[in-house]
């Protein structure tokens, strides 16, 4: 029994049973063991009945409840972090007095101008270096070089150049927005399927027609990604810019609150930043849904 072709695990009686049931080479085993059939559940019944928005809001609400619990039991003292109830109250007061709304307006304006300028410059440069070989040679290298300079580090220089008004703040946001947009739009343009370009050529599209109907729409998914990155960086840049000698805006409110140890006001300002960020993200998501509905990509289950 030392030479055996049976796998080491198989036992003697099992082998003999199979050999007896197979009488000849084309005899079919008539004692099929019943297969274990698994029901495939249709998606409609597999989906939970809890609506999506409710599922999405559950997590934050639980966190909020936990926070309130910690505050009211005294584990979290108010000079470390104010309670949610207190923050809601302070937030309401700030809105009521108009100081929060005017600060928001100021900050939003800074972001909007910076974003606009950054988008124009970033996209413009990307078009020049994406569409033309000569543009790439002239533009890409300097942009790639400048990109490695941390833009926040330029704040002192910008203050010297632009003073302490709105200009340095907008400039920092513009700078932060420009690079991610440039990189993504450029990558998008260079990533357009050459087969589609050729198809466009064969259809008689002019150079500009190719850019308009093939290259730009093809680069749009990347451009949207770039826009999302840019928005994130725009808020970050705003926070940095406003912490340094601002006399209006959300950052100014925060600096003031820090001087008076008002953690509640600081948290309100952070929430406002987060809320504005979410809002911006929502706008881009909606834009993506409208502009990129043609995309045959995975959209999640």
């Amino acid at each position, binding site marked *: 029994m030392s030479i055996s072709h049976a796998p080491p695990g198989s036992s003697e009686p099992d082998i003999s049973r199979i050999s007896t049931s197979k009488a000849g080479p084309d005899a079919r085993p008539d004692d099929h063991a019943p297969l274990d059939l698994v029901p495939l559940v249709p998606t409609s019944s597999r989906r939970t009945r809890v609506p999506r928005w409710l599922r999405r809001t559950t997590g934050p609400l639980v966190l909020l409840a936990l926070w309130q619990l910690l505050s009211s039991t005294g584990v979290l003292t108010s000079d470390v972090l104010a309670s949610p109830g207190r923050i809601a109250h302070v937030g309401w007061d700030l809105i009521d007095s108009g100081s929060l709304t005017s600060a928001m307006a100021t900050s939003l304006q800074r972001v909007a101008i910076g974003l606009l300028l950054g988008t124009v410059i970033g996209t413009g440069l990307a078009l020049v270096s994406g569409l033309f070989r000569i543009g790439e040679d002239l533009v890409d290298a300097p942009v790639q070089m400048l990109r490695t300079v941390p833009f926040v580090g330029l704040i002192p220089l910008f203050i010297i150049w632009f003073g302490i008004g709105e200009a340095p703040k907008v400039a920092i946001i513009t700078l932060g927005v420009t690079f991610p947009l440039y990189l993504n739009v450029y990558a998008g343009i260079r990533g357009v399927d050459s087969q589609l370009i*050729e198809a466009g050529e*064969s*259809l008689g599209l002019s150079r500009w*027609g190719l850019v308009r*109907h093939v290259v730009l729409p*093809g680069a749009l998914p990347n451009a949207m990604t770039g826009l999302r990155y840019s928005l994130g960086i725009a808020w970050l840049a705003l926070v940095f810019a406003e912490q340094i000698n601002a006399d209006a805006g959300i950052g100014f409110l925060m600096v003031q609150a820090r001087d008076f140890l008002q953690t509640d006001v600081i948290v309100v300002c952070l929430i406002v930043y987060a809320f504005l960020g979410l809002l911006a993200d929502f706008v881009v998501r909606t834009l993506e849904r409208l502009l990129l*509905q*043609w995309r045959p990509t995975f959209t999640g289950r």
Partner: protein
Amino acid sequence: MATDVHGPVTAQPVTSQAVRVEGLTRSFDGRPVIDRLQLDVRQGEFVALLGRSGCGKSTLLRILAGLDRDIEGTVLVPRRKAVAFQAPRLMPWKKVWRNVLLGLPGKPERAVAERALAEVGLGDHADAWPKTLSGGEAQRASLARALVREPDLLLLDEPFGALDALTRIKAQRLVGELWQRRGCAVLLVTHDVEEAVLLADRVLVMDDGVIAHEQHIDLDRPRDITDPRFAELRAGLLERLGVDTAAEAA
């Protein structure tokens, strides 16, 4: 356009000729893929081009389409020509009807696209995104996009290659019908001998960078693949392509 007149691919009317190629050479890195090739296609003629993979069929087709001008020799093609590639190459960001009208001069009406789509049996899909089309539907949309240009020369590069057998038969029949209705010259690149014999007036076999063999197909249309003469032509061409049919039957 000045480039059209003075460029290597020249568009000018040549009586009763749809394509005229003389001494065409195209090299990649010094290796000639097309080597002093001669080719003539009459107006309204259906020509099929066979050849083993990599022999330069697509290269020749791209040259005729004006997409590759890195050539030597004379190439005369009609001004109005259209191409359908093996992949449909629809712009995914344009609805089907906008794809059909893409690149047409002026501001063509949507109805123009709808007529062309109806002709290929896609009338209901004008408003669809390309991602929602099946392979055969996308290929037909690509065909409609070519036909809407009312070409005098239709260039097809293995347009049925990626289709399943049943869809392919339908698409072949469609191309045959469209050709008879439009009367344009067709150059069909294919690797399917049966398809070539089924559709073409003349079958060319490409090898070593030239047209190595020519076979006129004089069978009546519509053609019957069970006809013994059909089988004979098919076997002859297969032999030309280096496939031994006797061994295949054994």
